[in-house]
């Protein structure tokens, strides 16, 4: 529901991911983390929901 909501408001598809995981599923965790990184890399740096004052201080 949260994913659907954020995408409804206009957040890019792929920026936010949810997964069901058990602590015994190490391999699956790696797979999901890699897939998430890949999809976020494709999208490039986040422009939405980034606190500007924070960014201005730190970049």
């Amino acid at each position, binding site marked *: 529901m949260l994913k659907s909501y954020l995408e409804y408001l206009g957040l890019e598809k792929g920026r936010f991911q949810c997964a*069901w995981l058990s602590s015994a599923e190490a391999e699956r965790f790696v797979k999901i983390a890699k897939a998430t990184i890949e999809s976020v890399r494709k999208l490039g740096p986040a422009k939405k929901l980034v606190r500007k*004052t924070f960014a201005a201080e730190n970049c």
Partner: protein
Amino acid sequence: MNKIEKKIREIAGKLLKDKKVKLIIGFEKGTLPLKARPTFVRKPEEVEKLIWNPFCENNLAVYIPFYRRYLDNGETIGVIAKGCDARSLILHIQENIEKREQIFIIGIPCEGILDRKRIEKEAFPGEITEVSEKDDTILVKGNGFEKTLKKKDFLCEDCIVCSHRKPVVYDELVEGDVKETEAADRQNQIKEFESKEPDERWKIFTEEVSRCIRCYACRNACPACYCKECFVDCSKPQWLGTTVDSETDLQLFQIIRTFHLAGRCVNCGSCSRACPMDINISLLVNKLSVDAKRLFDYETGIDVNEKPVLNKYSEDDSNEGFFEEH
């Protein structure tokens, strides 16, 4: 005095006289013509001030958790409830902050609340000094003008797509014939927004929330926002900035507050009406209700014995939005 008012006073008077309830929450005449003010009646002789008209816009369920603190254990509160108010009360019962037997619901078949801001705009530049109702029209009078307006042209957006005008659960119902709306599909309300491109949607959303002045009127008007300590007031840890300087803080405040209402919002529209900056909060919360219906086939505040949708788990729940293996 209309028929509904007469009946409300009769029921309220009887309840107070028989000491069945300690307090009745209803509406009285406001100081301005297009407003009704929530009122708290404790004595049978005070019931004469109770009124009912299409400007009774607040969701009265919001006062229950607050007044409960000042009552002795087991005392009953009576509420004059529209369809949406009654659904909010049921939400409170489902979430265990109220007991069913400690609330007396005086149900009112509601024909929809009128949008006071739109009526004021219609009468502009004149100032409205008097309003009266007749069947399906209202007559607004001001300095040197007089206009008859059709009620159905000025219904609040949430009331147009309302699916439960008649309270679903009640202890006593004020009889009245009210038809359920034909366009009772919340989907219609968000369709246009949803058909836009993501960046366009984000732009509209940002424009809307950038007007926010963080007055928290939406939170205070919301019957589902009853947390004793709200995440925005919390300073240890401080979840998000409290000023209006950062656009992101405004976006986050609106996203987080509305998402806390996922599967709990009854779409009464109180938040949008309470907003002094005219932010279309309904546009946000409606999506959550549409999703609750689409993913879990759930509507808030219908059945007292049901659990809130995000509190229950079933193996065949939808997996939409979760990571899928390829």
